[in-house]
């Protein structure tokens, strides 16, 4: 049996910040995310050129609520990381998928990801792994249903940035998220098709990359400069523990397949604090906030942020009181 521990007995809370380390962390986050973002942009370009808008509409359930539950299921069986999901989600919205359904998939893909559940099991192998996996999945699902039910009530103009809503749709009505779509012949395999594909990939890639750069800068700053031991004294507290877990998730901005390994080693946190960390982190954090801003307006993202964190806090608080 292998055991490793992260220890450093003399860590002082006033350690400060190393700017070269921020540069290293920033560089690492953007290099890690860029291949997935590019993959997402390429898939988005292929969808743009080859997939008729009507087809997606035919696939989707007629009711938005059914669509929302379909998106949750798709999040489990078609996992995607956050960076890769964003260009595809924006393209699907322009192809006529209701924004609430597309956004539910965007949130569900990293949060309900089987890989995230598997890594949670591995990370907590010596600390009641099934409990952690079941709580993570169940709480994530409850929060996602709550967020989905909120989003289906919103109008597209409340959820989308002006340019996603109308910017590129003035010339081409098919790009409109308006449900009354007009089908236009796809260029398919032709020079025009390649031209449209290249243009779409580059626009989607650079459009989201800008927000990845901003998000990575913020994430690098906090994941490098924030002293994790500052939260240790409140990690076991019934009420403050889950809050500390949520706060740490917001600051560290870890991917959902990695976060369990980091928090499993964090002995000062109670189970509810760790679950709060694992549920809130994949839904939104300081990096995801900026990535979401590439598609959605600030007002919507702020609403999503508050609701996601409040729901996570309430659930983990209930669990803390029960156990």
């Amino acid at each position, binding site marked *: 049996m*292998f055991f490793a521990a992260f220890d*450093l*007995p*003399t860590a002082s809370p006033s350690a400060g910040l190393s700017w070269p380390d921020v540069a290293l962390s920033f560089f690492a986050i*953007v290099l890690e995310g860029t291949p997935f973002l590019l993959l997402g942009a390429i898939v988005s370009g292929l969808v743009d050129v080859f997939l008729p808008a009507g087809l997606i509409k035919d696939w989707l359930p007629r009711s938005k609520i059914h669509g929302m539950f379909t998106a949750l299921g798709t999040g489990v069986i078609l996992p995607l990381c956050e960076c890769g999901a964003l260009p595809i989600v924006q393209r699907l919205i322009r192809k006529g998928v209701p924004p609430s359904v597309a956004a539910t998939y965007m949130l569900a893909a990293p949060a309900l990801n089987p890989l995230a559940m598997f890594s949670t099991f591995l990370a907590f192998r*010596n600390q009641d792994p099934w409990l952690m996996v079941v709580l993570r999945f169940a709480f994530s699902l409850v929060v996602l249903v709550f967020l989905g039910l909120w989003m289906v009530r919103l109008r597209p103009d409340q959820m989308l940035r002006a340019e996603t809503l109308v910017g590129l749709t003035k010339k081409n009505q098919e790009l409109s998220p308006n449900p009354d779509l007009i089908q236009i012949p796809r260029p398919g395999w032709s020079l025009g098709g390649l031209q449209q594909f290249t243009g779409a990939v580059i626009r989607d890639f650079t459009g989201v990359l800008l927000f990845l750069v901003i998000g990575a800068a913020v994430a690098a700053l906090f994941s490098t400069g924030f002293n994790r031991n500052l939260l240790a004294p409140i990690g076991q507290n019934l009420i403050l523990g889950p809050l500390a877990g949520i706060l740490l998730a917001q600051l560290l901005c870890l991917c959902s397949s990695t976060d369990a390994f980091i928090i499993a080693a964090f002995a*000062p946190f109670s189970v509810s604090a760790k679950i709060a960390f694992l549920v809130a982190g994949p839904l939104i954090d300081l990096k995801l906030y900026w990535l979401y801003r590439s598609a959605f307006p600030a007002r919507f993202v702020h609403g999503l942020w508050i609701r996601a964190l409040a729901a996570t806090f309430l659930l983990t608080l209930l669990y803390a009181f029960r156990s």
Partner: protein
Amino acid sequence: MIDRLTRQITFFAPAAVMSAWGTVMLHTIASGHINRILSPTLRSYVLVAAVLLLVLSALHLFLYDPASDPTPSASGRWRHLIRWLVLLLPVVAASILSPSALSSTTLANRALDSTTGAIPMASMGAANNQNVQAALSADPNQPVPVEVTDLITLSQSPEQMKAFAGRKVRTVGLISNQDGSSKLVRWIMWCCAADAQPSSVALDNDISSGTKDGTQWVEVTGTAQFPSTLGHVVPKIEVDTIKPTQEPDEPYLSP
């Protein structure tokens, strides 16, 4: 004149940004700096992305359709320019400024206080267990090559700890001096340097000749000990020799 300049920027900027990113990525791979940044599985993805970005830059220059990209309005020109600069400058600057190892400052921020108890990291099982078995069965008269994490693994098992205490060991790591005590540190990386966590063993005396910033690689030979403080074992090396050494090919330990 300004309109023409804006149109030129609109045309060239995407190709410039994507080729810059592709070149930075290829340079990071070619120089080996990528080993300090990403875990082995993700490195090949960066290589593929770099090549694709260069291909996309060329396709953009040949196939660009001005009609698909509306010229920004007068008020949007600055935003347009700043957007391309944000895409271009930070990544180039970070590739130049990023150091070879995370410093002691970040070590203190990312480390967890061991007095609260060490939690086993089960995911890192098989490989390290092999190391430990090999170390236990090695020739007791020769220093055994071990990793910092092997000593921590041993410290979690009373039987193995007892069998190994007093053995001569040889190991490499980054030297860190803080608050009058010295440690030998190895960083463990899951995906990238942003999620790297430090793992350390104590050295028996303050190695004041070492650098303070935690970026100096050293090879330490000495005797492994497992002293217990308030019921918590912190592995320690009683140092015989300590000398600067080359950075290992893989500076981070992977799970």
